[in-house]
């Protein structure tokens, strides 16, 4: 187990290195400059500014310098937010994104789980079709439609909850709810198909034959085993949902990270693009790793010793 973890950690570092390298060189292909008023810069000023920020050096040198700084934990400074460190920029914005994401994830998983279990147990019934329909709608209707509807009806018309802004707990409810729709749909569909598969397994028949009552069979044997693959899916979903979503955050004026990435690419804020890419991918890789470790605990059939020998 230990050596498996070390091996995985090694791979994670290599993966990150590849991502950093690829992003760094791909980024250089985008035309334009990272300076703030490109419309009004003269050629001469551009040369001077490039020299000032070391952008006149060959890309390979810039890359090595970036790697050097990165190893020392220095992500550099933002161009668009003159002089703010990339570190503090991510730090300031990740909190709200993660909070809303987490709420959406918890709420969405619970509702999704109930819907999924319910429809699998009533397979091919009206209830099943209803919850499948809900799931399909949840997947296919973009979340900004829900967001806009929620904002208008719950916020403006009914005045139950704040329309937008980030002013205390009540303002997190609508964005979390809008965000959870995708989670509900994803989890419900996944659970349903897993449940259906598990219900046909021999050990379920065995459990019933033993004379266990139906609720014990469903909770102990079916749902538990159906949940295992869901963990695999939930990890990456958690990362993507908690690192901020462009549309929901924009609509509800959530001070999150979601929009920052897109904006940085548009204005070519090199250090921020690198910083956020690195942050996202590190988080993603870490979660995938944790899920794999968890898997070993959840499913006794998976043995890491075997992986070491192979």
């Amino acid at each position, binding site marked *: 187990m230990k050596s498996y973890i070390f091996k995985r950690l090694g791979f994670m570092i290599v993966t990150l290195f590849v991502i950093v390298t690829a992003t760094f060189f791909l980024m250089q292909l985008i*035309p334009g400059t990272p300076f703030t008023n*490109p419309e*009004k810069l003269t050629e001469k000023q551009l040369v001077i500014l490039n020299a000032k920020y070391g952008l006149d050096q060959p890309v390979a040198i810039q890359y090595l310098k970036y790697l050097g700084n990165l190893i020392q934990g220095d992500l550099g400074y933002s161009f668009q937010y003159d002089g*703010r460190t990339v570190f503090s920029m991510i730090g300031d914005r*990740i909190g709200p994104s993660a909070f809303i994401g987490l709420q959406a994830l918890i709420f969405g998983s619970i509702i999704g789980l109930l819907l999924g279990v319910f429809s699998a147990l009533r397979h091919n019934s009206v209830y099943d079709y209803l919850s499948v329909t809900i799931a399909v709608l949840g997947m296919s209707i973009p979340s900004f439609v829900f967001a806009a509807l929620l904002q208008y009806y719950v916020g403006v018309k009914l005045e139950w909850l704040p*329309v937008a*802004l980030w002013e205390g707990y009540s303002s997190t409810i609508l964005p979390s709810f809008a965000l959870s729709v995708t989670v509900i749909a994803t989890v419900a569909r996944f659970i349903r198909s897993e449940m259906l598969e598990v219900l046909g397994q021999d050990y379920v028949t065995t459990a019933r034959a033993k004379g266990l009552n139906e609720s014990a069979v469903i909770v102990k044997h079916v749902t538990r085993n159906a949940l295992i693959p869901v963990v695999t899916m939930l990890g990456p979903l958690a990362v993507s949902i908690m690192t901020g979503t462009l549309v929901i955050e924009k609509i509800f004026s959530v*001070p999150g990270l979601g929009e920052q990435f897109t904006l940085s690419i548009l204005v070519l804020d090199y250090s921020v693009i690198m910083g956020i890419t690195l942050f996202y991918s590190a988080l993603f890789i870490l979660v995938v790793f944790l899920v794999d470790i968890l898997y070993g605990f959840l499913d006794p059939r998976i043995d890491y010793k075997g992986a070491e020998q192979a």
Partner: protein
Amino acid sequence: MRNKTWMAFIFLTIFALVLSGCNFNKPDTDKGSTDGKEGTTTEKGETAKVEQVLRLSASAEIPTMDSTKAHDGVAFNVLNNTNEGLYRQDENNESILALAEKHDVSEDETVHTFTLRKTNWSNGDPVTAADFEYAWKRVMREAGAYNYMLATAGIKNAEAIMNEEMDADELGIKATGDLTLEVTLESPNPLFVTLLAFPTFLPQNQQFVEELGDQYALEAENVLSNGPFKLVSWTHEQGWTLEKNEDYWDADNVKLDKVEVVVVKEPSTGANLYETGKIDRTVLTSALVQQYSDNEDFQIEKESGIIFLRFNHNHPVLGHPEIRRAVNMAIDRDGLTDIILQDGSTPLYGVVAGEYYFSPDGKDYRELNGDINKGTPEEAKALWEKTLAEIGEKEVNVSINIADSESHKKVAEYLQAQLEDNLPGFKLEIKAVPFAQRLEIEKAITYDLSLSSWGPDYSDPMTYLDMWVKGGSANRMDYDNPKLNNLVQQAYTETDLSKRFEMLLEIEKILLVEDAAIAPLYQTGVAILKRGTVKKLVKHPSGAEFSYKWASIEE
């Protein structure tokens, strides 16, 4: 076994909680709302009853509050209202004496001596002439985004410093006493005073700036104010609060107690917040205009940006002035602004925007020069066919370079329809690219037509006119008319304002009447919702968008 499932769940939850951290913070706007009011019950009876709080929204976070580095409208806005420079823009966008009490000019009009009022920074330090010297030199040293403004102002050696031929210390500014400042210009410059109202020319407290180092101006407590308002709180990506500065030299004329600004990036959210009474003014997009155009708070405000077509003057066909004039005439601007855009834009038949720039005797520049190259489709067609025959061409296949924004795409499609309908043999292909690339293509002059925009740097027609001189960095179409080049040079140093204004009018005539060098399309504008209780919220064409100094809330 069941424990393990629970462990897994708890593990994931804890992991998520750690990630979310503790910075779920509420803005402290609620806290201050009571204590601010009591102390400032005004002597003026009529405004005392109404709460003097203005609530606005901003489209983005403040990048920096450092006036030497600030480069965007959001920061300029806050800087303009929390700081005071030598001059500031008044209600009519004219530069008026602000922190400078007296402004003396030497006989050759190159040495300007300013006497400052006795005022203090918000930390109690006096504002001195040295603060200006420090800040201006710092702009040059840091190569701030707007350092060229000092060169435009004609301050001695600014251009050479910009081009790294001289040291920032050699800038033509010197504190000759605690409250006397001497600024030397390269040559007389009629624009100097206009430019001094720009936020880049604000003072900075050297000791304060240097103590904070790279943390300066990144938080509310890391900036100093000396203007009508103080920045009292600033929560990143969420908003900021300004409070009246009681120590401001002209505090008697400041009526608002507080200005609260929240960051709202989505216009429909802005409209919803307006409806629930959270903000007092919001900008509408064209989709929302239809919904709100009957609202009693609905207004159109003209802005000072211009959208126009650049022609590649090296193009075999577009290089001909009469061809360009025919293109100008073939486009129905009213249809463009009233049917396609519907966002407060107005038709433009000149390069200088209307309603913001006035002659010394108070006449609008745009009205004086009138509509240029305005024509009917028939006139356009006749001129087009005649000129095409002279050149010996039958058809013209060109492409238009545009930024891939929603509104520019709509404009390009409209132009395509108009030009192909009205000009026989004209074929227009639309090439949409990201903004930065559009600019690169323009700079390389590898386009046929390009849909461009321009915003003024300062409140004077010159900011729209000197960009067309040969080799100018904003020319970007190889336009060259020696007459225009000379006239711009002359106008730079002409200090007789009436004569100068005549020159400015003439420059536009050369550009458009003589050469039809570009095709102006529309002047930008905004459709807004603004409460009737908000009075005298002054909007400027350049630099900072708003001055809150004269604003008030009245029932």
